């Protein structure tokens, strides 16, 4: 498997603001890669650097084997991009924009264009200024999906789409994956990422904090366990990786680092298990854990001020 996108130690500053602070990202060819992070974490900045619109302050970025800044136009023949906030030319129709962007990319498949228009239920005769946000988003999506490219860069592509259209989007991305295309999907919708992505990278404040398959990421986080035991458990608190332990007679509730689950289960079994439920972490918890560190960091100065 080759690498479609490889970014390491990427730094981008705007004046005093440090938008990216040593970001790493690797996307393998043929995978659908989720790109997660809170607002302002640097997702869009990363995509703009990958498109050669912004010049990185430091670090390296390689896209489809080329340099995104120097080889921009050559690379752009092989990719399609959907911006997070689509603005259209007010006096061009949606159909004209789809054709124009497709031709500028090197042609688009008219059959695929027609079928996408139908599936996304878009009226291509409306002028740009008459479209709602969701419909503008559809114009950009159709223009991208109807082109024959290797790589799709999608910046929160479903914002503004209704649930039906979101479902349609998921189907389309599934088709892209089967066709062997690479997709970098920046998103906030965790269900979407869980359903579509082979691997995810979570970034915060311009740095990558986690990256891997969902299974790998789950492994790094805590599983919640609750059990009813035959006897009073001993020594659970001393076990490594056990957190938030609540013991109420012979009932036990706790969180455990997923890679330390073995030791906990052995200790519970020793006391005799009557019932046991264990819940793997959802992506949401994973996400929140990283975001919350951020929230705590943000709240701290307030407390000092008080």
């Amino acid at each position, binding site marked *: 498997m080759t690498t479609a996108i490889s970014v390491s130690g990427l730094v981008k500053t705007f004046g005093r603001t440090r938008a990216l602070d040593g970001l790493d990202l690797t996307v393998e060819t043929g995978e659908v890669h989720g790109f997660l992070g809170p607002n302002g974490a640097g997702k869009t900045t990363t995509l*703009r650097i990958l*498109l*050669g*619109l*912004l*010049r990185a302050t430091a670090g390296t970025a390689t896209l489809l084997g080329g340099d995104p800044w120097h080889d*921009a*136009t*050559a690379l*752009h*023949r092989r*990719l*399609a*991009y*959907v*911006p997070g*906030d*689509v*603005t*259209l*030319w*007010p*006096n*061009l*129709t949606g*159909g*004209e*924009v*789809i*054709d*124009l*962007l497709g*031709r*500028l*990319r*090197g042609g688009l498949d008219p059959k695929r264009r027609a079928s996408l228009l139908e599936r996304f239920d878009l*009226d*291509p*005769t*409306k*002028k740009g*200024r*008459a479209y709602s946000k969701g419909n503008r988003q559809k114009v*950009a999506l159709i*223009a991208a999906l109807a082109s024959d490219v290797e790589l799709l*860069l999608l910046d929160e592509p479903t914002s503004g789409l209704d649930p039906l259209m979101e479902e349609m989007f998921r189907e389309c991305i599934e088709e892209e994956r089967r066709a062997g295309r690479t997709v970098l999907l920046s998103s906030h919708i965790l269900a979407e990422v869980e359903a579509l992505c082979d691997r995810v990278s979570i970034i915060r404040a311009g740095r990558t904090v986690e990256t891997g398959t969902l299974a790998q990421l789950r492994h790094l986080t805590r599983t919640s366990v609750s059990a009813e035991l035959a006897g009073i458990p001993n020594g659970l608190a001393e076990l490594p990786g056990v957190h938030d332990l609540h013991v109420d007679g012979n009932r036990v509730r706790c969180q455990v680092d997923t890679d330390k689950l073995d030791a906990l289960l052995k200790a519970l079994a020793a006391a005799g298990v009557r019932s046991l439920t264990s819940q793997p972490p959802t992506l949401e918890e994973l996400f929140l854990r990283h975001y919350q560190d951020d929230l705590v960091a943000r709240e701290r100065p307030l407390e000092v001020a008080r």
Partner: protein
Amino acid sequence: MTALAGTWALVRLNLRRDRLMLPAWLAALVVSLYGSVASTVTLYPDADSRLRAAAVIAKNPAVIALYGPTTDLGTLGGLATWKPATLLAVLTALMSMLLVVRHTRAEEETGRLELVGAGVVGRHAALTAALIVAFGANLVLAALMTLSLLGQDLPADGVLALSLGFGAVGCVFAAIAAVAAQLTDSSRAANGITASVLGVAFLLRAAGDAAGNTGPSWLSWLSPIGWAQKVHPFGDLSWWPLLLLPALATVATVAAYRLADRRDLAAGVLPPRPGPAEAGPTLRNALALAWRLQRGSLLGWTVGFAVLGGVMGSIASSIGDALGDNPALRDFMQRLGGTGILVDAYIATTMGIAALVATAFAVQATLRLRAEEASQRVEPLLATRVGRIRWALSHFVIAVLGPAALLAVAGVAAGLAHGNRVGDLRGQFWRVFGAAVVQLPAVWVVAGLTLAAFGLAPRFATAGWAALVLFLLVGELGPTLQLDQRLLDISPFVHVPRLPFADLTFLPLLVLTALALTLTAAGLAGLRRRDIG
């Protein structure tokens, strides 16, 4: 009054957004008027010198067409305010137009008004707030102009009448802009409609003023700018034409509110029509897109230039007739080489002004780049195989060739009109056409300057407009203000050979073209290196 809820909050918002632009406009207008008056007082200290100056210009219809009637030139006030008056009235109208459209249609088009309108804000609040700011700005302008001129030994009632005239013209065009903002759903079109009305108002009074006693002088009465002139602040002062201006402003304001009642937020009165579902075969590269985006504007400008050229060309030959009843002047001109020289000088001056107007198109067409960048429409475009240099050139080509087309059209129209009038089409056509086209290198310098600002310091891309206004003021008022020649020399238009009056010299044209190319290259180099967005 729920339709007006929140108006004051929006007035404060508008003033906050305009806290730099509005004072800059007011200061520029007041200082231009004050400077022109102050320098005239020092230039022509006594009545005798003023009468002599007046005698030279009073009979020239071409000059009258540009600057206005010369009936009051014998007075200090009349002479001092004659030259800047029409220009300042036009600029005041433009300021008012931009103020109103910026806070009404532009806000709706971007969707910002939707955000505001969801608060406790009435349906007419934005329109009312925009008009309050625009009318208020014009009142402040009139007050400042009055105050600045009171120490200048001019009759106080004349000063007040003149200043109120400027303010009232501004209010009229603020109200017309408010109507235009209801008609279409794009701010660009609203500005275009208002500017066309302003252009027609200018041409009507130009034709009427220049017509003299025998021609259709009533045309001036069809123009709001003409009404302000009919007040004759420093001659035979009559206040009542001044009343026509607030009357028209009121009618237009009422019409704007009526229209606003009949439409939805973000929609225009004119309904949107569906367009083609597929792009035509030619819409396949960046240049085709730029052409598609700019062709409507260029077409409008071309029509305007054809009219301008035709009017100016048909007036040209009557300059000789105007000398008819002044044997001393006629004799003087004969010795200089005939009245032909006067006509030639007029053609050169007219084409110099046409060049300044064509430059406005060049700046506007170049700044389209910045608009595309700021609205992020350029992002999906640059994510295709279109490179940034190719994209920049796609619009800049229109900024370079557009003015060439405009000046050529003006030259053809003026050449045909003038040649037919004097019965020497073959001889005169090319001389007039040459006078128009020779201006191009100076236009290109300003286009290059705008592109350089866009490429090197995009936040200051509007420096192109600032440069154009500076060159306009330097060229129009510089000689009156007796500015230093080195200061006048900063304007590229000063260096263009004044064809057909003067000889064609290639050196200044080559230098100007080289300068334009250098600025363009600097702009493109800056764009290649900088961040987009």
